[in-house]
Every structure is written in C-alpha cells, then in structure tokens.
C-alpha cells in the first residue's frame, strides 16, 4: 500500500526481500543442476565443478549409460502434442457450453473437480486395471493419453471459464445481426477474441502432459515416457548425465513457455495498440 505521501512503507522492502528469497528458492536449485551438467567426464553429482565440457550431453545421445532416452522423447513429444490438441478442443467446447445453465451441468462440474483432485496414481491404477480386464493393450497413445487428459482437461476448462467469464456476448449478437451463421460466429468472432486464453490452454495441455508422471506410470504399457525414464534414472544413474537430461528438458520447456507467452503478449499488444478499443476482452 502507498502511504498518503506516496512513499513506500517499510513493509514494501520487507516483502520485496521475502519475494526475492522465494524466487531464489524457486530457481536456485535448478540453476545448480544446469551448471553441474556442463562438467567434464570426471564430473560428480555435487559441487565443485570438475572440468567443463559437453560430455554428459553427448552421453545422452549415445545412451551408453542410460536407458532409451531418445525413444522416450520420441513418445513424449507426440503425446504432448495430441494431449494439447485434445485439451484445446474439449476445453473450448466445454467452456462454450458452460456459458449457459444446463441440466446436469453442476454434476459435470463436480466430475471435473474429482478428476483434478483425485490422486493421480489411483486413476492410473484404475485405467490400467480397466484396460487389463477388458483385454486391451496399454499404450502411450491409448491408455496414457486418456490418463493425461484427466489432468489437463480440468485446467483447460477452468481457464476457459475465466476467459468466457469476461467475454462480452454482444459481439456474437452483432455478428448474428449482420447475418453470420453459427460456424462463422465461432470462427470469425469468438475464437479470435478468446485466442490468448486458447494459447494458455494449449500451454497447459502440452507442458502438463510432457511432465506427467503419476497418471502415466501404470498406463503407458511396456514403454516409458520421458518423466518415467528420468524417474527410473534417479534410482540407478549416479552421474551428471541425469543433470544433462534435466537441463535439456527444462530448456525445451522454457522454449515452449516462451513461445506461448510471447504469442499471448503479441496478440494483446496488437489488440490494445489499435486506436479503437477492442472491447472488454
């Protein structure tokens, strides 16, 4: 809060220091493993740095000391893309539907919350058991895909609720008055207005799938996704190769986050940069 004179009170500085400490706590450990992943071949799991090289990154590609990392990546990325696309489609449709009251809506909303707070591994066991008892093979593109959607959809839907909560329906009516059909209204009016929200949903869909562990463990069948591979490495790999993998996947996540956030920022800037106010959204 500002004091009457506009000077910052002492609490501002205390809280700013607290915030800085929190950010250090948040990023400090990650920075440590990034640094340690660039060690020489004699590198160990702790400081001090033993040499400097890209040795452990090369190790990732040659896979002499590790499991099938490249295979895991080749499954995790397509899976994340499919989950992202499905999350966007289902969440946008669901968000549109929940703008109106409909019978059973409250029950469906509760089911979404259950999907969000139910222990992930329990859902994983259930899906695994179901596939087993029905005689279906468990695979990353079937059972694990469904399992991950139970984690990404609630987030997608809650974001769409927030987005449509501030959406002015007068735009839709104006379009209809001008003779637009339902499909045109969606494609030319609604989607462009809520696009930043849709990108946020896509970001959640991709990253939450790419990093999903508990729901995938019992549902990915005989092959591993990347988080499962990393987890199995924590128990049997004792060299910085695991840090190198951490650096690579985190860098990849940062790229994805950067692209999504810049896209949102760009759209907002274009929108608010124009002379005409672009509406409430």
């Amino acid at each position: 809060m500002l004091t009457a004179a506009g000077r910052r009170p002492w609490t501002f500085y205390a809280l700013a220091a607290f915030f800085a400490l929190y950010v250090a706590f948040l990023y400090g450990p990650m920075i440590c493993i990034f640094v340690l992943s660039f060690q020489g071949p004699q590198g160990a799991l702790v400081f001090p740095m033993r040499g400097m090289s890209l040795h452990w990154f090369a190790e990732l590609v040659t896979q002499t000391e590790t499991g099938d990392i490249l295979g895991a990546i080749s499954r995790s990325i397509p899976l994340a893309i499919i989950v992202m696309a499905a999350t966007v489609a289902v969440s946008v449709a669901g968000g549109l539907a929940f703008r109106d009251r409909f019978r059973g809506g409250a029950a469906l909303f509760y089911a979404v919350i259950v999907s969000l707070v139910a222990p992930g591994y329990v859902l994983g066991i259930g899906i695994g058991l179901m596939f087993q008892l029905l005689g279906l093979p468990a695979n990353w593109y079937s059972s694990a895909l469904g399992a991950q959607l139970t984690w990404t959809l609630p987030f997608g839907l809650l974001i769409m609720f927030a987005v449509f909560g501030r959406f002015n329906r007068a735009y839709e009516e104006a379009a209809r008055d001008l003779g637009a059909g339902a499909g045109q209204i969606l494609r030319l009016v609604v989607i462009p207005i809520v696009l930043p929200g849709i990108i946020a949903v896509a970001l959640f869909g991709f990253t939450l799938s790419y990093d999903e562990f508990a729901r995938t463990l019992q549902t990915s069948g005989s092959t591993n996704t990347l988080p499962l591979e990393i987890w199995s490495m924590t128990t049997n790999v004792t060299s910085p190769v695991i840090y190198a993998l951490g650096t690579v996947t985190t860098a990849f996540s940062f790229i994805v986050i950067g692209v999504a956030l810049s896209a949102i920022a760009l759209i907002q800037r274009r929108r608010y940069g124009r002379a005409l106010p672009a509406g409430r959204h």
Partner: protein
Amino acid sequence: MRHAGQSGERASPSPPPHRVRTAPPISGSPARPYLLVAPLLAVLLVFVVAPLAFVVAVSFFHYDNFAIIPAFSFENYADVLTAHLTYELYLTMIWFSALTWFFTLIIGFTVAYFLVFHVRNPLIAIGLFLVCTVPFWTSNVIRMISWLPLLGKQGLINNALLTTGVIRQPLQFLLFSDFSVVVSYVHLFTIFMIVPIFNSMSRIDRTLFEAAADAGSSRWQTLLYVVVPLCKSGIALGSIFVVTLVMGDFYVVKVMSGGSRASIVSAMYDDISTLLFPHAAANAVILMIIVVIMVSLILRVVDVRKELASQR
C-alpha cells in the same frame, strides 16, 4: 487504482463464468450445450468414472499367486486395515501434508500479498507473477532432484557452512530426511497456493483499506480482519490442491527420504509390482475416502461455492 480487475488475464482456477445474460443464447437449440460437453463427458466417463468403478470393484476381489478372481469379499480391506504399516503410512503422509500446508500457506499468502498490494506497475506485477508460475510448467521430477547438489553431505549448503566455520560436521538431516521431503513439497507446490490467493486478493476493493484505517485499524488488524477473511476461498482452494497433491504423492517421499520412508501411493506401487492388485485397490479406495474427508473438512470451514458465488 493499479491493476484491479486484470487478474483474469492470467491462467488460473476461477469460478464458472458470469451468468449475466444480455440476450437469449445465440443458438436456441436445447441440445447445444450437450453436444458441446459430449467430448468432455466421454473422457470423464471413460477415464475417471469407469476406472474408479474398476478400482472399487477389484478391491473386493480375491487373489492368489496366479490370478485375480472376481468375488465380493472384504478380506483386502481387512488386510489393509489390520496392517500396522497402513497407519504408519497415513500418519506420515498426513503429517507431511500438514507441514507442507503450513509453509505453502505462509509463503503463498506473503508472495501474493506483495504482488497484489505492493507492486504498483501492473505489467511488472504480471511479470513477477509469471516468474512464480514458469517452474510449474517444467518437470517436477527434475525440480525435485535439483535439490541433491544443494542438500547433500558434500552439497553447497554444508560446504558453505563448513567453510564459514558455522558447523564442524556436515549436517546430516539436510538430505534423505523428512526435512528434504518437506523442502521439496514446498518447492513444488507453493504455486498452488499463490495462484488462488492472488486471485481472491485481486478482487478486494482497495477502499476497504481506507475504511479500515479511518476506523482506527492498524495495518496488522487490517490484514487479519479484512484481507484474510476476504481471501478465504482462495486459501481453501489452495489448501485443497496442496493437501491432495501431498496425500497422492509418489516420488518425492521415495526419492527425497532416500528410501527410508514410503508414501501411501508408493506402497500401492509396490503391491502392483508384485501383482497384488486387489490389495492395492482396497488401499486406493481408503486413500480416496481419506482425501474426500480432508477436502470436505476444508469445504466445511470455507464454503467455496458460496464464496465464489458472492463474488460474481
């Protein structure tokens, strides 16, 4: 004043949309909402409702060394509930939940308070908020293991303390202990407190601060009697997230305790690895019941639905 009302720009859990109706729905067809939610409903039925039903069904099955046999018996529950280990696991995880809840709440509330009430420039507030949320979109497993070089016997913290002469022996409790487990939880889950509390705080009318001050309230009293009550729904939502995440945790306890502790879920995993599906299923049902009880206790203290509705 500042950025009130912009909070919704960020991706965050929030209530279903306003129902301010400016006109009748675009398409009058009563089937429209059902067509739109059909995919959502299908996913939830196939991958949430049906699997949970399977878990409940299998928890009553018989099993021997070779197969699971459909049956209706309570032996799995009897096994789980008479095992001393079960109580130990639940007490451990409830203890970890309580500790994690306490620290994430204190940190989350303070961070949100700083961002909402002390950062004047809305763009900077959004930027700092994103700084807090970015790690959420990266791998939890990696974030957890990134504590190893810091907390170990030869880790950064012990080394720093040894060189500065604060301690003579490396601190053993830093890694592979309850301490490192709680540190990891707080590290991973504080964001789940920050976002909902941030959301509730952003909706607080700033004139209330002046009113409180005019009425002779100190800053501390304003915090306690104005801000905290108005953040109740955010605190409750964050608490639900943190408690359910810790209770359902798999790998943090396993890795950060160095194998000395197990979680409820990792015990289930061990069951499944030895094909004791019905035993794991019974444990899963009990876990679900405990989690539901914990969530309803939180909802009993704060009626989230009512709170959210009143803020529309």
